[in-house]
């Protein structure tokens, strides 16, 4: 069982880091978004510190969504998706492994970059830690939910924009609890653990729903 999964995981990672791969472009986009916000709202450090967690979360959400349109499309373009569907491996697990590899290649760098970017937004150390942990827990949910959109738009030539439109509403709960957990760590109207455990639950739910919905959509897509 683990053999083919490991093989798929390694292939996805290799594709993400080699020529043409978009592994680190997501981080660059994240950096660009976070840099551009102060130009819009002004360099008021107190204001930036207040909206910092939200800025980081929205940046991470957008960076995740932008990278997702190629999740299945690259395989569809060269016919590999057909072979994957015929491979005799459960499509749900294939989706899960692909999401895991995609997250390691694009989501994890976002989490690693978040503390650095948090400095630009004048976050306190506690807030930096909180945002990083919530991103670490929450970005897999974004990838898994986004996978549904990616498989729904796999047949479309330019599915990227539509993907974002489809997925953003679904990602709102993750955003809400991610940001509120990060906020709760600093100014405590609610304890940090309440929104944080809901965030963990959301990730677990999407780890189940995402692969099933996505696999179903992929099977229909080849009709």
């Amino acid at each position, binding site marked *: 069982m683990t053999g083919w999964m*490991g093989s798929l995981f390694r292939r996805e990672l290799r*594709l993400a880091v080699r020529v043409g791969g978009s592994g680190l472009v997501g981080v660059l986009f994240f950096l660009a978004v976070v840099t551009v916000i102060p130009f819009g709202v002004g360099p008021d450090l107190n204001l930036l510190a207040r909206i910092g967690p939200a800025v980081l979360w929205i940046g991470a959400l957008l960076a995740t969504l932008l990278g997702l349109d190629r999740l299945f499309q690259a395989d569809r373009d060269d*016919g590999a998706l*057909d072979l994957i569907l015929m491979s005799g491996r459960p499509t749900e697990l294939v989706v899960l492994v692909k999401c895991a590899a995609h997250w390691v290649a694009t989501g994890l760098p976002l989490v690693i970059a978040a503390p650095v970017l948090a400095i630009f937004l004048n976050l306190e150390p506690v807030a930096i830690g909180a945002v990083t942990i919530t991103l670490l827990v929450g970005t897999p949910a974004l990838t898994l939910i986004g996978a549904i959109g990616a498989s729904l738009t796999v047949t479309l030539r330019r599915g990227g924009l539509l993907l974002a439109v489809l997925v953003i509403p679904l990602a709102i709960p993750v955003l809400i609890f991610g940001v509120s957990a990060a906020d709760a760590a600093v100014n405590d109207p609610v304890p940090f653990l309440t929104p944080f455990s809901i965030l963990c639950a959301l990730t677990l739910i999407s780890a189940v729903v995402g692969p099933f919905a996505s696999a179903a959509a992929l099977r229909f897509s080849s009709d």
Partner: protein
Amino acid sequence: MFTGLSFSVGSGASLQVTGANGIGKSSLLRTIAGLVSLTEGELTVEDGDPELTVGEHCHYFGHQNSNKPALTALENLSFWRDFTAPMSKTVFDGSAQAPLAALEMLGIGHTASIPAAYLSAGQGRRLALARLIVTPRPIWLMDEPTSALDTTSEAHLLYLMNLHLKRGGMIITATHTELALSKKQKLHLQAAELA
């Protein structure tokens, strides 16, 4: 899409699907592969693995090569070897070459460590073909298998196909060109008369 279509292919036999362009040769193969769902009727594999669908008994060799340009030829092939679930020996005991041996056999062994982006069209085609001989599966569905191949490669392909048949495999091809396959049956698709 199809009406009144019925055929059976025995072990070691091949079926050549012919017909005008756009008649649905490719769709037929894709239906057998399970990529297009059947609205009516059924497909069965006798003495197959009851756990598996018909498509999971098949190798699909379509127009696209599914080679990733960023991976080397060997990485591409090894991935498909590991990823594609093999058939159990009791159902079908076919060719299971090691990836490197398969590349050598197809005459592209020297490209093993070269990214697939550098391969020519014919070499890419052969790399895709190598996939069929690293994982044993009884049914080969081949859509225009000879496209982009020169005469030597075509002879090579025929050799592999006949070897597969000799081992009790089945081949269903959709092609215009005559292929010298053993135990060949033909299925000619025709447009329905419009009532």
